[in-house]
């Protein structure tokens, strides 16, 4: 992947498997959690966050540092980006500093693709608008594989605001490459029928119970009120129809796991009881974030 990582959609299954295998070696359970490597010594990685983010930015920073790279993080607030500098000028300025890779989060879908067309530096998409968030899907797959021997044949339910979710898109593309049975569920305006066409093996239901039935994995999405450009659903009744509660878990497979990309809204899309239950692997996801991002950085720059 010398071209960076713009999305999961265009990545081959074998490539994904290689990253997930490699990420396993970087997991804390493998005893490397305090050991700093020198794989990327002397390489500079710029984390460019045009949109606020705590876990993704921190996780990329830690991953870079554990590999021995120099990582600097720039967020939009307080930088020249907030002084009206255009995206292309900001990036040209940064490119002139010759980083080895740019990790980028941006509120506009396609912003990293735009830059990749204009800059000769590998760009790693850390989330673009409502399009993709490839490393999230990779860490989610790593988390599932920590609980299951294979992705093949699993049923994964993704529930919430699918239309505006980059996490959902990347997960759909990744899981579909492994023949996963994918069930999407959310209020109708947030789960448009066209979503079923973006990858094979995807179906849509508007009934959370049907979505959860026999699921191996339940992925809850954050209800992104900040991405709502209009009132697409009556917010007051969201939890009643699409919030995940303990009573739902009985419908899933007995050992089903519950995931959430965070930050969670307790009582909006997920009840506290579920978030804190034994089924929840939400903190494992965070932990895997570093391991997966180390594997991605190593693959692109190593």
């Amino acid at each position, binding site marked *: 992947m010398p071209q960076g990582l713009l999305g999961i*959609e265009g990545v081959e299954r074998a490539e994904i498997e290689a990253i997930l295998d490699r990420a396993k070696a970087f997991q804390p359970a493998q005893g490397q959690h305090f050991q700093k490597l020198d794989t990327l010594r002397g390489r500079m990685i710029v984390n460019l966050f045009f949109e606020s983010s705590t876990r993704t930015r921190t996780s990329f920073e830690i991953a870079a540092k554990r590999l021995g790279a120099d990582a600097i993080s720039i967020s939009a607030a307080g930088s020249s980006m907030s002084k009206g500098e*255009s*995206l*292309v000028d900001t990036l040209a300025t940064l490119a002139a500093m010759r980083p080895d890779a740019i990790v980028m989060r*941006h509120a*506009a*879908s*396609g*912003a990293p*693709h*735009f830059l990749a*067309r204009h800059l000769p530096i590998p760009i790693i998409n850390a989330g*673009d*608008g*409502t*399009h*993709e968030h490839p490393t999230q899907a990779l860490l989610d797959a790593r988390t599932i594989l920590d609980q299951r021997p294979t992705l093949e044949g699993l049923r994964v339910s993704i529930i919430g605001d699918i*239309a505006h979710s*980059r996490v959902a*898109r990347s997960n759909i593309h990744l899981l579909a490459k492994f023949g996963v049975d994918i069930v999407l569920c959310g209020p109708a305006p947030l789960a*448009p029928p*066209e*979503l079923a*066409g*973006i990858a094979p093996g995807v179906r849509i239901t508007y009934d959370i119970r049907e979505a959860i039935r026999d699921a191996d994995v339940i992925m809850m999405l954050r209800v992104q009120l900040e991405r709502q*450009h*209009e009132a697409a659903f009556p917010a007051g009744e969201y939890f009643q129809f699409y919030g995940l509660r303990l009573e739902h878990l009985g419908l899933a497979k007995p050992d089903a796991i519950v995931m959430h990309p965070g930050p969670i809204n307790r009582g909006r899309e997920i009840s506290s009881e579920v978030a804190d239950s034994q089924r929840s692997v939400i903190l494992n996801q965070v932990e895997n974030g570093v391991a997966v991002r180390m594997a991605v950085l190593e693959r692109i720059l190593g």
Partner: protein
Amino acid sequence: MPKLLIQNGRVMDPATGFDGVTDVLIKSGLIVRLAPHMHATGAIAFDASGLVVAPGFIDMHVHLREPGYEHSETIETGSRAAAGGGFTSVCAMPNTQPVNDDAAVTRYILEQAARYAVTNVFPIGAITENSAGEKLAAIGSMKAAGAVAISDDGCTVMNARVMRRAMEFARAFDVPVIDHCEDANLSAGGDMHEGAESVRLGLRGIPASSEDVIVARDLVLVENTGARLHVAHVSSRRSLAMIADAKARGLPVTCEVTPHHFALTDAALAPYDSNYKMKPPLRSAADQEALIEGIASGVVDAIASDHAPHPGSEKMQEFEKCPFGVIGLETALAVALEKLVHSGRIPLMRLIELFTTGPARVLGLNRGRLEVGAAADVTIFDPELAWTYDVNRSYSKSKNSPFDGWTFRGGPVATVVAGKIVWQRS
């Protein structure tokens, strides 16, 4: 001005149906004789052997950006791009700064055109003041000053009552109403056609229904008022079907289609390249096919470029921040030849009709014919010419073309306006 003799070309005139090799003699800006093997002493001779000689092409939907946005285009640069595309006449949309909503602006455009344009420029006046959709613009006086139609292009009149009054006025003054049909509530926030591709790319959609509901509303109002309605840049299958139905019922309705809408689909958006971002958006393959069928069946009256220049600085941004619109004057004929004629969908004569008698009829312009006594506006093109479009060599001030780098079969060779060769392929 010396006489001009265009020799040995294949003269094709949809107004008369004439199709044969002959000479065209032009004197004092008028066509004076059509006959084979003429000799005219003192005339400039243009050898059109192997070329098609057609009535001057009319592009009825162009944004010249002057006054107010001269950094994007001027009447001079826009008209040069028009001539370079084989057009002898362009209609200038009123969304300038100030908006062409009264006779003073209309006159200003005509004066600038007389001074700087190499082609004919026909202004289109606004429907409402400042195209704000509220108070009617000075429709009568704009017409008297030379406006050939009214339109709030890009800012659809959302208030049906205002649109009704505008149509009543337009009917009384016998001015066609050109509507960019877009329900602003349904399209709000959208960046591309709503469908499988927008969902995949995570870009907000502009549903085809945003076009369809306004076309439906306008057709009802046409039935009530009797106004002549011209639907600009039809992009949706359903809209086209409604227009076909209205025409079959004898309503005074016409429509145009742009080259980008019949040549491209929303699949082109994948690289988030804003040179494919325009309104209405590139739609699905099914919509594209319906447009081509409409062109072949005769439902579509004209091909228009919707030439919409935006400078690079505005197009070099996040996709969602980029303005809508692409340039198209220099590529319209080549794209149309490629996608409509060489592909076997329509005969060459029909293509010429869509660029000449078609728009002339919509606007009531005394243009688009190659007859003795007609204005000597002539488009000379080579349907087989092999060439590549390089947008960096465009006459337009802006370079936002989806067709940059395309290699074409067929293109314009020379443009004659009022008896003068204003552009010739070098």
